[in-house]
C-alpha cells in the first residue's frame, strides 16, 4: 500500500485554517484502515496550538485504525521545531527534545477523564507561569470553567482515543489560548440523535448552547448549565470561545453569540478559548448571593 502523504500547510486559527484541518482529516478518513500516513511539513511555516492539538489527535486516530503515522521531521523548519520542542509535541513526533520552556503550554493527551491531572495542568502550566497575575481564587474559577470544555469532550464525544489539548501565551496581545480537540461524534450528531430527526449544524449548536439543554437525558436527572456558565464567563471577561463541531460552528464573545453551518467538516470537535491576561478585567463571583440555595 502506498503511504498517504499529508502535506501540512501553514495553520493559523481562522476559518480557512479550520477548513485546512478538516481537509487533512478527510484525506486520512478516505485512506481507511491500516493507512500509512506521512506528515510532510515542507509547506508549513506556522502552527497554532489548535493545529498541534488536532494533528496529535489525528496521529492517534491513524494508530487507532491500525495505521502508522510518521512525521517527516526533516521537513520541519527550525522555527516550527523550536515551538514543538517547547510544547512537547516533538516527543510525540519521535524527536528527543529538551525540556519545555518559553511561551508554549504543553501539548497533552488524555485518554480518560482525570480531573485532578487536568486541573493541575490548567492551574500550573496554563495559568501559573506568571504571565497572568492570577489570584488563587481566580485560578480556581477559571480552571472550573475550562473543565466544562473537557467534561463535555469526555462525556458527549464518545471519542475512542481521548482528548488532545495545547495552549500558548501571546505576549504581544497579552492573550492566553487553550485548544481542545476530540475525534468523536460531534455536538450536532448528538443533538440529531436526541431529536431523532435531521437538523442543521448551526441549529444543533444553538440548541446545545441554550441553558439547561443536554443530549445526556438518559440519566435520571437534569443536566447542562456548564456551557451556559462558560458562555457567561467568556462574555463578561472579554474572552473569545470558538467551537467547530462536525458541521456546526459556534462563537461566543463580548459581542454575543454566532452560530453557523460548516460546509467543510470533520468527525469531532475543536474548541479554542482565548482569555485576555489582565486580571483587572476579571469579574469574579465575589458577591455572595443572599437568597437560599433551594
Amino acid at each position: 500500500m502506498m503511504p498517504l502523504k499529508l502535506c501540512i500547510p501553514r495553520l493559523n486559527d481562522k476559518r480557512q485554517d479550520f477548513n485546512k484541518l478538516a481537509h487533512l482529516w478527510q484525506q486520512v478518513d478516505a485512506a481507511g484502515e491500516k493507512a500509512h500516513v506521512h506528515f510532510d511539513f515542507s509547506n508549513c511555516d506556522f502552527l497554532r496550538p489548535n493545529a498541534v492539538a488536532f494533528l496529535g489527535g489525528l496521529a492517534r486516530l491513524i494508530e487507532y485504525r491500525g495505521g502508522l503515522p510518521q512525521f517527516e521531521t526533516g521537513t520541519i523548519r527550525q522555527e516550527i521545531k523550536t515551538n514543538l520542542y517547547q510544547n512537547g509535541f516533538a516527543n510525540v513526533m519521535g524527536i528527543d527534545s529538551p525540556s519545555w520552556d518559553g511561551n508554549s503550554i504543553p501539548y497533552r493527551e488524555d485518554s480518560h477523564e482525570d480531573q485532578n491531572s487536568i486541573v493541575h495542568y490548567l492551574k500550573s502550566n496554563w495559568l501559573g507561569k506568571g504571565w497572568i497575575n492570577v489570584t488563587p481564587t481566580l485560578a480556581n474559577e477559571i480552571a472550573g470553567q475550562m473543565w466544562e470544555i473537557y467534561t463535555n469532550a469526555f462525556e458527549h464525544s464518545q471519542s475512542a482515543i481521548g482528548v488532545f489539548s495545547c495552549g500558548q501565551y501571546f505576549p504581544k496581545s497579552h492573550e492566553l489560548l487553550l485548544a481542545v480537540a476530540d475525534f468523536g461524534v460531534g455536538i450536532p450528531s448528538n443533538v440529531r440523535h436526541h431529536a431523532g430527526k435531521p437538523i442543521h449544524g448551526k441549529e444543533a449548536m444553538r440548541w446545545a448552547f441554550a441553558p439547561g439543554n443536554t443530549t445526556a437525558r438518559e440519566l435520571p436527572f437534569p443536566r447542562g448549565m456548564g456551557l451556559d456558565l462558560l458562555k457567561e464567563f467568556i462574555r463578561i471577561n472579554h474572552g473569545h470561545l470558538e467551537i467547530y463541531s462536525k458541521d456546526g460552528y459556534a462563537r461566543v464573545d463580548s459581542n454575543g453569540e454566532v452560530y453557523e453551518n460548516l460546509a467543510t467538516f470533520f468527525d469531532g470537535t475543536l474548541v479554542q478559548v482565548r482569555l485576555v491576561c489582565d486580571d483587572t478585567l476579571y469579574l469574579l463571583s465575589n458577591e455572595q448571593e443572599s437568597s437560599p440555595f433551594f
Partner: protein
Amino acid sequence: MQIKVKELVGENAMTKADGEKVYSLIHDPLIEGQTVELDFEGVEVFASPFFNAGVGRLYADLQSDALNAGLKINHLSSFGQRVLHRVLDNAKEYYLASPAHRQAIDRIVQDTAAAM
C-alpha cells in the same frame, strides 16, 4: 450528619462520579428528615456535573422547603455558590414542570427540526 466534601472527593468537586458519591450519602437521610451538612472547606474547584449529580437531582424527591430546612451548605466559595445556584435553578425548573410540560421541553428541538 456532617459530610466533609474534601475528604470524600478531594480539592476538586467537578465530576458526575464525585457528585454521585455525595448524593448516595445524603439522599436517604434527607428523605428521613435528618439534617445534613455539606462542608466544602478546602474544596477549591467546582463544576456543574458535580452539583447536577450530587445536589440538583434531590429535587426529584424533595421540595424546596424540605431542602432548605434539611441540607446545610457551608464554606462553599463564591464561585461554587454561583455554580450551585445555576444548577439548582435548572433542576427546579425541570422537576417543577408538569410531565406534559417536560415532554414539551423535550419536543422543542424536534419541532425546530420539523420546521426546517
